[in-house]
């Protein structure tokens, strides 16, 4: 058998049985090609057009004879897998529920505060000509992202930074 590397550039002509000799096919099926255009016959002595080795390799591995891999479970194992799957779904549902309630709690807190603010004036009591002024200002959405520091977009990492929190930060 030819070695694998000597086959470079001849991918279009590979029969599957040359690469996997253990697997014998009654009918040798051609491996599907990347390009749908007609492959030119090789000229005598010159070889075909030069093929990219990487593409050849990708084609080789994508057409691996062991795909798709079967996932075979015994009866008890399948049952166990089902139980694990159900447990995970339940766990996620509970987690989602908890997060939603957390958000709801914060929303309610905001709503109550805004409602209180809407009904009172500058002296903290209902009425007066400036009743609801603070509320009106609080509801403004103009420029609310102004001055948002870039660090606000920092995402959480699995491991903390080497320098830790910058306690020594100075303005200006």
């Amino acid at each position, binding site marked *: 058998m030819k070695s*694998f*590397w000597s086959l470079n550039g001849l991918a279009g002509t590979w029969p599957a049985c040359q690469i996997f000799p253990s697997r014998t096919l009654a009918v040798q099926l051609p491996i599907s090609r990347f390009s749908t255009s007609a492959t030119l016959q090789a000229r005598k002595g010159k070889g075909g057009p030069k093929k990219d080795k*990487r593409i050849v*390799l*990708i084609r080789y*591995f994508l057409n*691996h004879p*062991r795909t798709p*891999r079967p*996932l*075979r479970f015994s009866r008890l*194992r399948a049952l166990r897998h089902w139980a*694990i799957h159900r447990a995970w779904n339940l*766990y996620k549902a509970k987690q989602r529920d*908890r997060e939603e309630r957390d958000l709801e*709690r*914060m929303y*309610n*807190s*905001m709503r*109550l*505060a*805004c409602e*209180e*603010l809407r009904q*009172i*004036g*500058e*002296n*903290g*009591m*209902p*009425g007066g000509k400036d*009743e*609801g002024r*603070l509320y009106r*200002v*609080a*509801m403004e*959405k103009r420029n609310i992202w102004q001055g*948002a*520091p870039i*660090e*606000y977009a*920092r995402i*959480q*990492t*699995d*491991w*903390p*930074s080497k320098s*830790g*929190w*910058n*306690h*020594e*930060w*100075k*303005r*200006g």
Partner: protein
Amino acid sequence: MEASVRLLHRYEMSATQHTLRRAFTAQAHPAKGVICRSCRAGIVRRHASSSAAAAEAAPAPEINILAEQIPRTAEHIPKAAPAVTQSYQMRAGVVLSRPPQITRDLTPFEKSFFLYQRRLNERLALPFTRYFYFRKDTPADIQYKRRVKERQTPARDIGKYNAYGAEGWNDELLVGAVESEPEHQMQELLKDAEEPTKEEETATSLEQPMPRITEADKLNDQKSLNRLLQRTLYLLVQNQQGRWVFPNDILQGRENLHMAAERVLVQTGGINMNTWVVGNAPIGYYKFDLLKPVVDGPNQVLGEKVFFMKARIMAGQADLATNLFGLKDFKWLSGEELQTHVSPLYWKSVRGMILER
């Protein structure tokens, strides 16, 4: 004649009623209970938001005149209320928080489930395309072969498992297996990267990531922002009375809550904090009623209302040396610690703003 008298009478009645109504409208039914209920129902209602306090301040001589003129209705009309205004002290508070810096700890179930999934994936995945990544007979290739022979799988952090072998079915681990620990997986990855790619190279030890439990955690240094990296920390200050509260101050002049929050931050913790007040709307409020109103001239202060604004800290540390409110101490606390520091009443109105994590 009689008819005209009756007409006149009716005219007079309606006129007096009209005057009365106007008088009451001007006075705008002060506190409940001063006027009887039926009268109040009869009087034109002002807008629901009309203020009792403002009405009480208004003089009521007109009513007295009316009371003399119409003795029948006089019993319904109260004496002139004392010109006292009531008010609440309006305050703006800041809930300054440090967001979590690292991801949360996984639960044991999550850990084992993730490893279970990764091993299943190993069973389903195509064989590793070695020649695509390593040129044949290069040191890297030899290295790779040696490692794979040892761990039997191209995946570096799922433990010793060969999905293609005869034992491929045996992909499950026992409870508490060390392979499912993130710490162990990280060490495996590091070990893999540490070894030299060429044999002549000496192994360069990679630096370990910083531990998730910091020094401040061990010392329980509640002033440090390096503590409890997976939790949100909130700035709490101890005021002159010794109570732990969020930084707050009276609203001054015509400033709005956002401006007040920014001012309070600077006046509490100094300028060396990189903070950002999120949004214009308050995220919660705390109302405190005094047992006995504090009389301040014509004004009665019934208590205080604190509206909290949300703020984030990005860098820096609070410094109470220059604070204007006579604050004694500050702490960076998580939600649970916060609950043990503040009064139950305060916690009740504040807990809606505190995140679970």
